[in-house]
């Protein structure tokens, strides 16, 4: 027994002795007579952080075999992303309170991104600091409505027109905007004025009222007058890219294009209903959008006025005002149905809708020049500030957070056609009057379409087929 025990002990010791070698170099010798073996071994120092203050080490391997089930996992992530986006969609920021009568127009200036000019129906002009949400300066600009405000980049001054048939030029030199006291210049015009637009680079103003007039600030008489028909014009805008082109909406349901250098207007397109407002796309030279009374917005290419590029529908009442984003990719529209809608410039349906119980009839809308905020002015004397992208975080966004938000946005874009994700992304709570009106209008449209289809299939002599887009246009004239 002892011998066996001893033998075992000796064998054990031998075994242990062999175990304590460091034979790595020996086994990886360069001769073939020995076997070579390597077993996977990881040094923990390479994979663990050194101190508690470091971040954790994360070695990555992008081999697809290690990442199974990619499609369902990404789909789940996209679903979470779209739900989170809806959770964080809180677009209302604040309200600028202070006017004593309903708002009639808004003006922006590129020199101070946080300044906003607003004109009221009692003739008051206020300059707001939007970031601090307070008034910087108030001045009684006109007797009667302030019809339009426009900022001229060429002369760095503000122009306003009012019901007292005056064009006033204002300058605010001071940094705190408190010197908006008296107009720098006043032009007495004889006729009604409803809109104003300054030229991008020349000291010329265009006003509309009974006719389209071009003014120079130093002259008391218009340098040019364009007249087509006897009807008045509602709104006029200079093209900011093609600087000599103007467009105006007339009360005879027309949109008229002018070239400043010519003596007669260029073209006129007559729609079925009157347009309330017009806005040029700041990035694309020949595209403009009109806000029409027939609950739609029409985007035209200046070169081809016989068919609109796009018909943007979704409002349930007349559209009052439209303004483009400085990127030219989206625009905001304010409508008589107490809602503000944001559209993508190429798409027919709105991407977002903003509404509040307290917001009554809207009169004007503006998109801030840093592309982040939307202003809406309404009849109940308030200007509301909204986020342009409802789920955007306004504060300081850290780099990792930013990456995560971008990844989420991309995931949503990747899976946007899947039914569940589409449904969640498009779902918006809408006021009851809008909801009911929308259903009513939709059933009316479907009924009209079905009737036309039936009429066509059962009549022998048929009128030519007109596309939905072109139906809104009555005629084009030169």
């Amino acid at each position: 027994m002892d011998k066996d025990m001893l033998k075992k002990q000796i064998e054990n010791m031998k075994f242990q002795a062999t175990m304590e070698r460091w034979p790595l170099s020996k086994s990886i010798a360069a001769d073939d007579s020995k076997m070579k073996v390597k077993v996977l071994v990881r040094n923990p120092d390479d994979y663990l952080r050194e101190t508690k203050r470091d971040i954790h080490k994360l070695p990555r391997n992008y081999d697809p075999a290690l990442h199974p089930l990619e499609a369902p996992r990404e789909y789940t992530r996209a679903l979470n992303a779209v739900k989170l986006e809806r959770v964080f969609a809180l677009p209302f920021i604040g309200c600028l309170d202070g006017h004593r009568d309903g708002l009639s127009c808004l003006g922006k200036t590129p020199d101070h991104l946080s300044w906003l000019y607003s004109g009221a129906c009692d003739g008051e002009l206020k300059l707001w600091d939007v970031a601090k949400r307070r008034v910087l300066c108030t001045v009684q600009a006109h007797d009667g409505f302030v019809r339009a405000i426009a900022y001229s980049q060429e002369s760095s001054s503000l122009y306003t027109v009012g019901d007292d048939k005056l064009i006033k030029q204002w300058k605010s030199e001071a940094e705190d905007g408190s010197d908006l006291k008296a107009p720098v210049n006043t032009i007495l015009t004889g006729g009604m004025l409803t809109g104003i637009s300054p030229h991008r680079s020349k000291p010329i103003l265009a006003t509309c009222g009974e006719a389209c007039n071009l003014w120079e600030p130093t002259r008391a008489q218009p340098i040019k007058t364009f007249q087509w028909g006897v009807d008045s014009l509602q709104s006029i805008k200079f093209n900011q890219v093609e600087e000599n082109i103007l467009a105006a909406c007339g009360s005879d349901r027309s949109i008229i294009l002018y070239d400043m250098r010519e003596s007669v207007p260029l073209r006129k397109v007559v729609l079925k209903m009157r347009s309330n407002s017009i806005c040029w796309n700041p990035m694309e030279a020949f595209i403009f959008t009109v806000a029409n009374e027939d609950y739609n917005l029409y985007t035209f290419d200046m070169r081809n006025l016989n068919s609109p590029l796009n018909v943007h529908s979704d409002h349930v009442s007349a559209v009052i005002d439209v303004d483009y984003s400085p990127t030219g990719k989206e625009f905001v529209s304010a409508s008589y149905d107490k809602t503000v809608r944001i559209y993508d410039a190429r798409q027919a349906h709105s991407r977002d809708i903003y509404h509040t119980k307290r917001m009554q009839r809207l009169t004007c809308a503006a998109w801030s020049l840093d592309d982040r905020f939307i202003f809406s002015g309404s009849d109940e004397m308030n200007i509301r500030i909204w986020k342009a992208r409802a789920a955007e975080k306004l504060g300081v966004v850290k780099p990792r957070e930013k990456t995560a938000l971008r990844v989420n946005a991309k995931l949503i874009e990747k899976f946007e056609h899947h039914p569940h994700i589409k449904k969640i992304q498009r779902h918006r709570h809408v006021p009851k009057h809008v909801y009911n009106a929308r259903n009513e209008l939709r059933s009316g449209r479907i009924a009209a379409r079905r009737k036309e289809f039936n009429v066509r299939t059962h009549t022998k002599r048929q009128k030519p087929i007109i596309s939905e887009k072109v139906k809104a246009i009555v005629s084009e004239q030169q």
Partner: protein
Amino acid sequence: MSSPKGSEKKPASEVRSTATQNLKKKFKPPKDEHLLRKTKNKKPNNTFTKKAEGRVVKRQLPKFKSSHGKTPNSGAVQKFSRPPKTGQKGKEGAQDDQTEEDPFPGDAPIPHARLQKHKRGKAEDLDKNGVTFLSNRIHLKKKEKLVKYAVNLAARSEILLPEETGFLEPAKGDCTSEITQVQIKSSVDITSATKQFDLSMQFGPYAINYLRNGRKMLIGGRMGHVAAFDWVTKQLTCEMNVMESVHDVAWLHNETLFAVAQKEWTYIYDNQGIEVHCIKKLNNVLRMEFLPYHFLLATTNDSGTLSWLDVSMGKMVKRTHTHLGRLDVLCHNPRNAVLCCGHSKGTVSMWTPNFVSPVVKMLCHTQPVRSVAVDQSGVYMATSSIDCSLKIWDLRTYNCLQSYKLGCGASNITFSQRGLLAVSMGNIVEVYKDICTETIHKPYLKHFVGSSVSGLKFCPYEDVLGVGHARGMCSMLVPGAGEPNFDALESNPFQTKSQRRETEVKSLLEKIQPELITLDPFELGEVNRQSVIEKFEEKTRYMV
């Protein structure tokens, strides 16, 4: 960086790199005296003195134009009182590495196999595909470009992977199957040698389960012995005897919970061994599999019932009665989370929780199927039956790729992360390499285990095979079995407690719904033609 003027007092033995020298050329117009002073302090260095000479010479001939390595700016450089780079380069042989013609211009080529590995399908031919609008076609082409760029980048990033796989090369004339575990153990370093160990316990045939990151191990003996421990440090997490027969053990999503299939019901225990749940609905369970991305515990029953239990909510997702008899052969396909069961009629059936009947049923053998295994990539399936045959099937085409005859019926088979197949026949465990792609004649490794094998599992991310047998368990070294480079965002063997908690929350948020389990995991990216056609028809019904 470029040293200031006071550096002429530096010792001569200081080595100056070509980088700093080139920088000096760029940013400092050299003066004669300055240079000469420097050369005095330096040891005679051929290249350096040559350069000094070159500089001096060149400035006396301002209109000299070298013919070497013309750049369009060479003329412009000469306007300043700096020597032209190009002319200088011609003089020195040792330092002309910047503007000389690059013999391999452009990016390094990526090996085709590596690129194929990262590709996720063929690119669409957009010109012929019927995309009518030009703007859409352009948009799609841009997307294809981005995809291609991503694939390239992923393939290139493989150079950053830190570890390499293990290997075993026998001595000349020998073959690997003759190498024993003792030999391997004695030839590797201490850490790896400790990974080869034997535990002899007397509580019945043991079932084994490794945690998903390869860190911890769970063993369950038929007599009721259950233990969870860190098999590298041999540190015991918990150990108990449940006083009932244990048929199978499985880790849940991390090391805090594990499930034990006991005589009547299934119990879930904490990492301290505290019984957390007793699930009476999972009764008479024979085999268990945990689907990590769906948080589903899939179990097979004595009476032929397959159940999926969502462990995050505690909800029974589906119970299907298979009507195919006692189910004691189970395996899950990691690629699409489908369960594969083997039956006594020689068939293998595949099940998802969305259908009452099996999605695939294939006749694999004429005799009862003893064991089924699916490899990591979900392409190959190995089945063994009582009549000593082992067959390899392709899961895309359901063809039999290889058919082998073994010494005796294989009771357990399992695939490793790198495609090695471990087969246990009675007392012997054999490991085969490249069994799916080629017809092999000899095993890679062989090991004689003392008693009949009851459980066989490879450890993820390690070159280790765990063998549970009637008298305990044994851990074998199999070089080249484990995936050397793990992705920390998938499973991290070096996870700390805070990382574990964060991963748990993240994986719960990304838990895939069981409705999305399909045979083809990429079906979600396909267009549902039927519904598109229906919608289109409805839209255009009254269109004129």
